């Protein structure tokens, strides 16, 4: 993604308001914005409240090459980029099962919906950690990709934070990509 491909429709800032907001700068807050601990605390908050599990950082594991689910929520405004959530099909079904109280033997529309919503809440929680970011960065609706043997190539000239997490036997990774910061 050379530019943010997920057009952010802001219901909150449009036209003159956005132009006014754009006069602000997040450059002075870049260390706070790129602080990796913000991502860890966001994941823990979202998963404990929405999925009902506590996650721990995982360095050793990787998303399997078999069928996987990737959700992307775009950032727009003073920060452009994306929040990317990626996990294997089995973990995606397990997350959805915990969110809904139902069983999901395979990836279907409900599983894709659940993973998109998790990514959306993660993106919102992460940006809420920095007040300037919360006020002047908007979110796109989630896009969800499923399949096998695909790679997501993203340019993020400002910074990238990619962390793996584990709960029980399940693994997922969350990436914050920043391709523009004003």
């Amino acid at each position, binding site marked *: 993604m050379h530019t943010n491909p997920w057009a952010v429709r802001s219901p*909150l800032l449009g036209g003159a308001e956005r132009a006014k907001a754009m006069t602000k700068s997040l450059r002075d807050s870049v260390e706070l914005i790129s602080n990796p601990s913000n991502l860890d605390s966001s994941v823990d908050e979202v998963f404990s409240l929405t999925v009902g599990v506590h996650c721990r950082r995982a360095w050793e594991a990787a998303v399997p090459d078999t069928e996987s689910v990737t959700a992307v929520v775009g950032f727009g405004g003073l920060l452009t980029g994306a929040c990317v959530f990626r996990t294997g099909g089995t973990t995606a079904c397990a997350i959805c099962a915990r969110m809904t109280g139902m069983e999901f033997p395979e990836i*279907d529309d*409900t599983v894709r919906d659940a993973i998109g*919503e998790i990514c*959306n809440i993660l993106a*919102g929680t992460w940006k*809420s950690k920095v007040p300037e970011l919360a006020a002047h960065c908007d979110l796109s*609706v989630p896009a969800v990709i499923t399949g096998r043997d695909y790679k997501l190539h993203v340019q993020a000239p400002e910074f990238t934070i990619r962390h793996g997490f584990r709960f029980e036997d399940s693994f997922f990774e969350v990436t914050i990509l920043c391709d523009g910061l004003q």
Partner: protein
Amino acid sequence: MRRVPHNPEIKAPATNSLSLSQVQIAPADKDVRGNRPMREITALIVDDSAVMRKIVARSLCQAGLDSLIVLEAGNGNEGLEVLKAKSVDLILSDINMPSMDGLEFLRQIQARNLAPGVPVVMITTESSEEHVKEAIQAGARGYIRKPFTAEQVKQRVLPLLNAA
């Protein structure tokens, strides 16, 4: 428009579909403390995520609204269609949605006088002071940030219903 009754105890069904059958919940005749009659509440939940609509409905049940009828809509346009056809006691809406977002939905409710006096609570990932102000100006009576707990839903929603 989907009319979905909800049971606070979620059990694994035989299928993985979220389209629940149209089964009317027997209205409870007592409140959560069992000491006064409890009226049936009809809530409209507007969110583009079906999973999130289900979670919100479950949270309402956990908050003590056992006698609950849930109407669902996937965006603001669908929400307006529901309100044209049904009267509701409570509206909970996301902000970021395709087709018509939550703030425009709120403005349209006001402009068309579709739900006079009905409290609207926004449930959204947007949480800055500016976002909250914008929602309140558009007519929202409450604001809950995702992720949320059932206790937060109880604290923000029940006082609005009691006051209505």
